[in-house]
């Protein structure tokens, strides 16, 4: 049996989502752009999905552009904002963004843009004064996450947006981790662009959307036919879009249920802190997503924990270097300035509405043993700190 506690990476497709999609892979395979009735039926389904998704985030259907993924949405929004202000050469983002924003910004730096990467404190929170100090008349766009994928920390987007607006810049929010987990209302919001991705809330991979506020100028990233009202070329991923719409409908129905997900998460966290010494919750004290917890197990290393969990059939993810191709620990945890003893041994558990109490209990049954086993191997421990050098502060690469 697999216990899946890695829902911030991706989620299981809801059966009802799959059922809604299937006819659009078999029977109704028409091209929504075709003039005939066969294509027309399909275009209608795409429109329904657009309405369902708009409902979930409190937007207008015309404000939704379907995309292939979060990366596309983020790239499209930031590039569009820059094209809107050809004379402004400054971008503001944060040190804890997803790679698709950070790497895009690095590319843009090479093309002559100036980028400010806002720092976060030890609880993963932004300093709005730092943001205000960074904003200038030259700032074209501010791009921040809604909620962090690793820690679940939620940024105060409306407060950020208010500052951004006072400088006349555009505000983009990467809400890939937030949509479907917390209520989002874009109608009276300060957000100009908002990115979401279907596979984070029980739709399939390969479909997402970008919200573009009505009246905000948009320059397409993918230039092609007249699809998406000329804002995103390419034949629509119809089945995926239908699935996304259905998933949005279900997410809205299930939003209330996120409270019980949160209760389960809180139980997990409290039990781990109680039963395993030298353990900390990263981002504790900040508002966080109801489904995410990131726990640092001091003196041991994340990949080793993951492999032992995997042998017990439990899937989680590590904030540590070893799971990715990078040798450095998670840029998010480093930006928070956590000590190295915590940094390398941090594990993210992310739940979904499918996570059961029994699964969490199973994790709680094996985790203390796994941590004890690895600590027995480790030369570092709370009693023998002689060799631990915490002197070097984490360096955040620009």
């Amino acid at each position, binding site marked *: 049996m697999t216990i899946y506690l890695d829902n911030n990476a991706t989620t299981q497709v809801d059966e009802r989502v799959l059922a809604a999609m299937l006819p659009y892979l078999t029977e109704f395979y028409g091209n929504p752009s075709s003039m005939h009735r066969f294509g027309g039926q399909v275009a209608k389904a795409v429109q329904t999905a657009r309405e369902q998704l708009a409902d979930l985030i409190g937007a207008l259907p015309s404000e939704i552009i379907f995309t292939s993924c979060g990366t596309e949405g983020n790239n499209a929004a930031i590039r569009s904002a820059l094209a809107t202000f050809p004379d402004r050469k400054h971008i503001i983002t944060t040190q804890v963004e997803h790679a698709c924003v950070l790497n895009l910004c690095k590319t843009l730096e090479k093309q002559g843009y100036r980028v400010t990467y806002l720092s976060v404190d030890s609880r993963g929170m932004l300093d709005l004064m730092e943001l205000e100090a960074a904003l200038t008349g030259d700032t074209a766009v501010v791009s921040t996450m809604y909620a962090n994928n690793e820690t679940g920390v939620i940024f105060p987007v409306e407060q950020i947006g208010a500052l951004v607006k006072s400088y006349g810049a555009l505000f983009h929010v990467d809400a890939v981790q937030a949509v479907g987990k917390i209520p989002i209302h874009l109608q009276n919001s300060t957000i100009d662009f908002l990115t979401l991705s279907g596979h984070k809330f029980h739709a399939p991979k390969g479909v997402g959307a970008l919200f573009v506020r009505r009246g905000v100028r948009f320059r397409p990233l993918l230039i092609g036919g007249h699809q998406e009202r000329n804002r995103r070329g390419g034949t629509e991923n119809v089945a995926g879009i239908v699935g996304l719409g259905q998933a949005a409908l279900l997410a809205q129905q299930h939003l209330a249920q996120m409270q019980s997900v949160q209760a389960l998460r809180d139980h997990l966290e409290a039990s781990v802190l109680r039963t395993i010494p030298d353990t900390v919750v990263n981002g504790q004290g900040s508002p966080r997503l109801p489904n995410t917890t990131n726990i640092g197990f001091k003196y041991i290393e994340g990949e*080793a924990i993951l*492999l032992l969990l995997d042998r017990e059939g439990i899937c989680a993810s590590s904030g540590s270097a070893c799971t990715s191709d990078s040798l450095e620990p998670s840029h998010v945890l480093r930006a928070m300035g956590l000590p190295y003893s915590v940094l390398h041994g941090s594990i993210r558990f992310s739940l979904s509405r499918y996570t059961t109490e029994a699964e969490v209990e199973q994790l709680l049954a094996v985790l203390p043993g796994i941590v004890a086993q690895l600590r027995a191997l480790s030369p570092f421990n709370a009693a023998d700190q002689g060799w631990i050098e915490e002197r070097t502060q984490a360096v955040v690469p620009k």
Partner: protein
Amino acid sequence: MWNYSEKVLELFYHPRNQGVIEDQGEPEYAVSRGEVGSIACGDALRLHLKIEIASDKIVDAKFQTFGCTSAIASSSALTEMVKGLTLDEALAITNRDIANYLGGLPEQKMHCSVMGQEALEKAIYNYRGIALPEHEEDEGSLVCTCFGVSGERLRKVIKENRLTTAEQVMSYVKAGGGCGSCLSVIDDILASCHFPAGMTNLQKINKIQTTLESLRPYLQADGGDVELFDVENDRVLVILKGACGSCASSLDTLKGLIEERLRQEVLASLTVEAV
């Protein structure tokens, strides 16, 4: 998830020789330790050796490791390998020997085997009272401050493993994998470490060809085959045929078997791609 060999997993799940060796004050034995790495780097190993003074032999070895799966497996493997060896025999162990004992390590994890070799060297030098140049202490001579790697250490690992790219250096000693500000210095060091003109291009291609020939019977036994298509610097382009071309594990064959073998037999920096 990394692709670990059976041996790596076995030694990770059931590590041998974990723990410490206490000095019991027995006059005929000495206990020595070697420590490398740090909690900042994410890898650290403390190796304990019990040495029979008269015979200069390692009679027991134990380890304490902070690190990932392959760090733990490498440390455990090392303790198995050195038991019963004389100190001189143990000093001859290279990081490649450790990796081979484990049935190979993913390239990005080779630094775990390097750490083992270095801890062994330190423990023996400590016992012999030879002072190792403590570059770690002297920030000035560090090339990579993120991972505390000195130029001397870089040169040694580059030469021993015939590394040619900064990516490889990162995999073997982590240097360059942090802020990246040392990468240009690493490139300079790589350039200065040009290896003795070992092979002409023609010799290299011939050697690749004969190595591939020697592998073909194994592939043919499984209904597959391989053919050399071209060699561009260190990229070896091959055509996979029959079952090898179509089967799902052809990438494993390519990387695990063919590339591994070519690296051993011809040049450590080769990469194999199917066309």
